[in-house]
Each structure stands twice: as structure tokens, then as C-alpha cells.
């Protein structure tokens, strides 16, 4: 039993997309740019050459926020979306009827349709491929060249993630929605 979360040291991100490929390979995510569990957000730069706004081109790696208070779970009519024992927000594909309420409810646009199973798919913190084997890591964390991600147990006060959250300033995305994400961006 754990409560897994992730810290993103997002200033390290160079937008190489290693995490996206590692995720697809690890989880058998279909090819096609519409199908992805993880992505790097980037906005087109502001300003006119050569007076460009460096800060406006920050890279924001993202994926499912694994909210403690997940809107997707709340709206699911068949309870296909559920919290597992580790607090990971997951989808039971046998129950999913592709009503797509969850996709609309998710404020982070973290869900997509797997056209193979015709169910909704999303990041599961590599629960079936790694956590179930006793590893405490995810494919995206392991592969990242500049080590953006630190994955760990938020309930364990001795874990590295707990230590970082105690000692470094951080923020979550769209906190005003009260979703209580378990992804934390450190500054």
C-alpha cells in the first residue's frame, strides 16, 4: 500500500520526447499522435526575431495528474475509472463503455481513446508493468535524459519525493479546481 505521486523538475526538460517513446513502448500505446499518455506542452514563442521572449518557450512535461479528487472518477457511470490501492487513477477496460464523460471531465486533457479496445486509456504510473513487479519507478522517469521526474510514495516520509516536497517550492496545475493532483512541479 502506498500513495504514489510524481515530482517534475520541469526546468530540466529539453523537450526531447524520450518519455513519450518510453511510455508507448512500455505500455503498448498505439502509434499515432492522438494516442499518447504523456506529452510535453510547448507554446509558440512570443516576440519578434531577434527580440524573443525566452521564458515564453518553457517546456511543460505532463500526463495524468492522478488527482486525489479526480473528476474523471466522479463522472464515470460504470465505475470503470477507479483509485487502486496505491491511489493511482486507473481504468478497468471491461467496465468502460466509451461514454467519454471522463474525457470531458478531465481538466488536464489526459485521456484518449485506444482504438484497439475502444475504451479510454491514460497513464497508470506503469502499475501493471512495473509497480506490480515491485519496482518503484515509471518508464518515463527511468529514461529521461535530464531527469525531470522523481516518482515515489507520498505517504513515506523518508521517500525522496516527500523530502523534495518539504524542501522545494512547487505548484500543481489548476489548483483552483480542487482536484488535488499528485503531480508536483518544482521551481
Amino acid at each position, binding site marked *: 500500500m502506498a500513495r504514489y505521486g510524481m515530482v517534475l523538475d520541469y526546468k530540466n526538460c*529539453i523537450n526531447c520526447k524520450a518519455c513519450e*517513446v518510453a511510455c508507448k513502448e512500455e505500455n503498448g500505446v498505439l502509434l499515432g499522435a492522438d494516442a499518447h499518455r504523456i506529452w510535453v506542452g510547448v507554446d509558440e514563442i512570443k516576440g519578434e526575431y531577434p527580440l524573443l521572449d525566452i521564458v515564453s518557450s518553457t517546456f511543460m512535461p505532463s500526463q495524468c495528474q492522478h488527482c486525489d479528487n479526480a473528476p474523471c472518477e466522479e463522472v464515470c457511470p460504470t465505475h470503470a475509472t477507479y483509485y487502486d490501492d496505491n491511489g493511482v487513477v486507473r481504468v478497468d477496460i471491461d467496465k468502460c463503455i466509451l461514454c467519454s464523460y471522463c474525457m470531458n471531465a478531465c481538466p488536464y486533457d489526459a485521456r484518449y481513446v485506444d482504438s484497439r479496445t475502444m475504451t479510454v486509456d491514460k497513464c497508470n504510473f506503469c502499475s501493471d508493468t512495473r509497480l506490480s513487479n515491485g519496482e518503484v519507478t515509471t518508464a518515463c522517469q527511468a529514461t529521461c535524459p535530464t531527469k525531470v521526474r522523481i516518482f515515489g510514495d507520498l505517504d513515506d516520509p523518508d521517500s525522496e519525493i516527500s523530502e523534495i516536497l518539504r524542501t522545494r517550492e512547487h505548484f500543481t496545475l489548476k489548483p483552483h479546481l480542487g482536484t488535488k493532483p499528485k503531480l508536483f512541479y518544482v521551481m
Partner: protein
Amino acid sequence: MQMEVSRRKFLQGSVALSVAGGSAITATNLFGSGDKAHGKLSITTKTGVGGDSQYVATLCEMCVNKCAAMARVEDGVITKLDPNPLFPKSKNMLCPRGNAGIQAVYDPDRLKSPMIRIGEKGKGQFKKVSWDEAYKYIEEKMTKILEEEKDNRSSFLFCAGEGMAEHTFKTFYQAFGSSNWLNHSSICLQTVASGYGVTIGAYPQADLENAKYVIMAGANRAEAIVTPDTMNLFKNTKGRGTKLICVDPRFTNTAAKADKWLAIKPGTDLAFVLALTYVVLSEELENKEYVKANFNGFEEYKEHVIGNKYTPQWAEKITGIKAETIIEIAREFMVNAPQSIYYPGRRSTFAKNDFQLRRAMAIFQGLGGGIDCKGGLVFGSKVKIKNHAALEPIYARAQSRAITKKADAKVGEAGYDDCAIVTGGGSWLDWRERFLTNKMPYKVRGMFCYKHNPMQNMPNTKKTAEMLKRLELVVVIDTMPSDTVMYADVVLPECTYLERTDPIKTFGGVEPSVAVRNKVIEPMYETKPVIEILRGLTNKISKPLFEISKKYDEDIQDEIKDSDEESVYKEFDITKPFAHDQEYLNKHAVEDYPGAYNELVKNGVFYPHKSTDFKQLSVNEHQYYKEKNKSYSVNGGRAKTHSNKVECNLINLSKKGVDPMPVWKDEYNYKVPKDKFRLLTGRHAQFTQSGTANNSMLRDLMMENYIWINKRVAIERGIKFGDTVEVSSKTGSTRIKAYPTEKIAPNQVFFIHGFGEESSELTWAYKNGGNDNAVIEDIIEPTYGAAAMHETNVEIRKV
């Protein structure tokens, strides 16, 4: 703090592709598989949730870095590549290409069996043959040519791309006895490696982990990933210990991670460095003690830089960078020295002045004393491994390299028709030009090409096609039906890097180690590792070739008279270097270290300090060496030249027509005619040149390359995102989709190299995006004959 995070919107594919199982690939025709006809992609993503998984330690070959990976194998299928955290060079990472290596193995377009050309050259029509038939065909053609050329072994050209087995192929070239060897260097890092080589004695590494101040000019480590530099640098930038100044005409991802981005005019970096040097010398900011002890020719250089008035104000007009910025950077660099780095970079030659640029950079670095020290440029050390014996017979009839020395060259002029200095790797552009204009000193009629794609890798594709057409026997060893394969007479399919064991390699640096690429799965189809290909080939040709030498080589005839034929043949038996398996040779290479071989087979990495020093520090980080055991300084902080000094004034160079000190010339000024654009090319993190162009997973990240064109210019010309434009120059043209952006200057355009393949056997890469080499002019850098890739002006037309 709130932040809106959007899904990526740009450069993404929109096609959902169906998936076939990885093991369901069967060859139904020469090139393709059943999947291909339907345009389906195969990915091999088993989830690894059950059953027996095996892990094999390997080294990546998706680019030059050779990062360590652990391959997961289930039921004989590679299902995942993960980083191997034991390797100090790549630490604990795999980039997107490294992750997508599985697709290189299971690409349905792979070369599957030996083939012999049946159609017109360049049309890609082949018949499938057995290995023996292919060897036999080569033997017949080769002996005919060598017979007619009276055993001039140099009538065959050998060329190879960079890689761990390049040496194995080079062994074949040496045993064969030709003098014509061309590798990637003249279209890669020749000028940077040589510039640093002659100035500070070696092409150094940069200790970015401990540097406090970094000028990264013309290098793009956020996109053109180099390990460990990329990982070391970007965790410290953005106010976290290392100040990064990015100097680049384009706003790259490195610029996005920098503290300051300077939009320099293309090809004017030399003026920038000279002006930095001027500031330091005129304000006397250099490390005087260091310079006094470790420089040769400092006073001449000082006089040269000051006397020529390479002032910041002078440089502002040339580079477009403000004088006060240049002054500020020069001062900051010296304040932080020796923990400051003018990053050497590792790239192809962009401008004609590149060699002198590198000299000026190396000297500037030396002024701060940041050589062979922590936080500066470092030489590092190496774990010694044993070489195995090679065979280098000398054939009396083999002529020297096909270059033309200038007959009437005086002291102070270039010694050759097309460049000043010829190195071991040669100059591809010079060689091709001599061949096409019949200026060769003798006939070169055949070519062996290993892991190299001349059709895609150098400027002016048309000329390369013409060269390949004129060569009578072109033998290509590759894994994919590249554009060059289409021009081959014989195609020998190599297995991919995950299907072979390669020579153990020693990786020098601050934290040196030895690593190996172990075979993960057996070679698929009829493919073989190059060592086995050469074993088969040399078994076929060794004796017949010796028969020809016997006929023409007086030395051999004399030797036979003095002893007997059998014992003379032993010296010319070119099968010998390939007689043993790679595993056997690898065992020999590390036999001085007890247990090392087993360690390498099991874990992929070995170094003597590993057992005492290696430990995991945190979720992501590891200690490879204790601080006291790191090789920051191996030469007492001195340069590695013969004199152990930084060489400012190289008189010997001037005898060969090369400026002894870096000089700015008016011809270097950046000029673009009205309505034209300077074409820039480069790399990024998702593709490695043409080698990955057909990789389905990487195409998932970026379907094709786009041309960057300034937003305001695009509006003027009515060009919108995704519009197709034709890019043309004197050399030729290509078509590519447009990406209007403010990240590029109004009179420049840019696109990623490696796209727009012409091989119709590459399902996804064929005519996908634009081919820069169809447009870039073959402009030759004068010192080493390197290809100057950023000197071409182009026209843009919406089509």
C-alpha cells in the same frame, strides 16, 4: 502559480495506424513484408506483465553516442529498451531514438537477404541471391578489375560511417591494401577535431557538470544530444549554478534553456570569438600566470588581435551581436575561469572559416586557464584494453591515395588542388569531384560502402548519384534499403545492432569505462554481423586476389623465390583478421582485468573502480567514481601538444597555405541577396540523419521535417503553416512543408537534415519531407576539404 498545459499542437502526426504483432513479420518479397503493402506499422510492445523476461546489456546505435541499454526479451522478441544505469557516459538515460531502437529491428523494410542488381543503376531492381552467390559475383568483378589494373589495390574505394564495427570494416580495407579510405569526418567533425588538435593537442571533452559559465555557440545540446554533456548541462542552467550563453542564428531548444540567447549571423562566429579575445587582451583579463607558463606565441597573437582591431564594435557590424554584450560576456567568462567553457561542439563544418574558428575558440579557452581542469575542457583518461592483431600487407603495385598534389605549389600555398591538408579520413567532396572530372591519378573502379549513405550524407545528391553510376562495382553493406543501396551492384544485409556483438570499446573521459554491445537476439532473416560478412567474403576472395598479386607484384615474386608460396601467402591471407568470433576477440581485449569479460557480458559495463566507487545516490542519480578518482586533470593543466603549450601561431601551417593565426577576411561576411535566404541545416533529438528516417516510432513524434521561415516573411509571401514550398539553389531543389516562426531571421530558412529519401523501398521515408542535400551546394572548406554546409543561399516558392 497557475499554468496552462496544452497537448502538443505542432508537428504532430494525425494518422492513427494499426498495429501488428512484432513477431508477425515474414518476408514475402525482396524488401517488404505482408504488412507493408497495407501501409501498416508494426510495433512490438508487449507489456512485460507476465512470463519469462530476459535482460541483455547492450549499447545503443541509433546515433553516435553509444548509450548503455538493457534490452528486455520475451519469447525471443525484444519488447523494451531501458537505460542501463551502470555506464558513466550515458548515466541513466535513453533518448527517444534509443527507446525507438526496437523499430530498427522490426522495420518491415529491412534488408533481408543478399541481392544483386538486375535493373538500371539507381532503380533499385535486384534479384535475391545466396551469400555464396553474392561473394562469387564480387570475386569475379573484383578480380577482373584488379587484373586490368595490374594489382593496383587502390582501384577500390572503401568508405564507412561511424560505428563500433567501423574498425572491423577498416581492418578489411587495410588487409585489402587500398589507399582510398573515406569516412564521415569531412562531412562531420574534421575541422573542429583538427582545430583543437593542433591548438591544444587533442579534441577535448567539456566538464559541463562543474562549469559555472558556458558559451554554447553553434552547438545545440538540447536537441543534438551528446552524452554526458546534455544531461550534465541542463540540470544546472536557468539560475541553478551554470550560466549558459547560447549563440545561434536560430532560437533552438538550447536557446530556450539558456540565460541569454545571441542571434548571430551565420558563419560569423569567428568574428565573435576574436572580439571576445580582443576584450580580454586589451583589458588584460587573461590568467597571466597560466598564459606565461602554457602558451606559445602569445605575444604575436596579442599583437595580431589588437593590431587588426578586432574590437567589439567591429564585431557588432559583422555578427549582429551588440558590442556591450560581447564585452560583458568576455568579462564574465574570465571572472568564472577556469570553471568556464567555450564549448567546442561536435558538428559538421558550417562555414569556410570553421578551422580557424576552432583555433580561435581553443586559444580563447586557454586564456582563462580552463584546460585539463575541473569545470573546464578536459582530456580525461582511458581504461586500457588490448587491440587484436590486424593485417596490413604492402602491395608493390598499390598506388597512394587518389589525390592530386599541386605540381607547382610553392611554400605558402595549399599543397593539393582542392585543399591544404589531407587527413586519414580524406575529403568526400574533393574525392567525388576529382572522380567526376576525371582528375584521378589512376582509375578507381570499385567501392565498398559500410553503414554509410553517401546519397544522403553530403551536399549535392546529383553528383553522388553520378559517381555511384560510374563506379563499376559498388558493394553496400547496410541494414536498410537506403538511397545508396539503390545504386549498389551487390547488397549485403547486415543485422541491426541489437542482433550482434560488437568490439568492446573503451570510453575515455573524466569517468572512463569500458562497455560492450552484446547480442540481444539472433540475427533475423539472412542477415549477419559485418565480421561474419567479411569472413565469408575474404574466404572467397583471398586466394584469387593473391593469384593476381603473384602475377604483378615483383616483391611477392621475389619473396616466393626466396622461400615458398605457402609461407608468403600467409602474410597476405586476408581471412585472418576475421577468423575469430567477436566474443573471442572481446575476451582477449579485456583479459588483463580478471572478471571483466563476464561483467561486460552480464552488465555491459566495466571499469576498475566500479567495485569500490559505484553506488546509487538517489532515485535518478548514481556515483560512478569517487571525487578523488575522477580524471579531471591528467596533464598538469597543460595542453597536450608536443610542446605541452597552447599553440597560437602555427608557422608550419603557413607553409601549407593556411593562416598561422585566425584571421577574419571580408569574404567571410554574411551576405544574402535580396529575396533569397541562407539555408541552415541541423539536427534534433528525434531523428539521427537519414539512418532513422524510416523509424515508425520516431515518425510518430514528427511525421516529416518542416522548413522554418520567418513569420512576417511568410505573411508577406502568403505562406501558411503546412503549405508546400519549393526550396531551390544552383544545386537543385526539394519540396517541403512550411513552419512560419519567429525563431528564425527574415533572410534565413532552416530544416532538419535526413528527410526526403528517394529510395522507394523505404515505406515511410520515401519522399517524406525535404532533402537538404539536394539543395546545399558542394562548397569546400579550404583547409581539410570539409563540406561547408551553411554557405548556400536559396529561393523559396510556394507551390
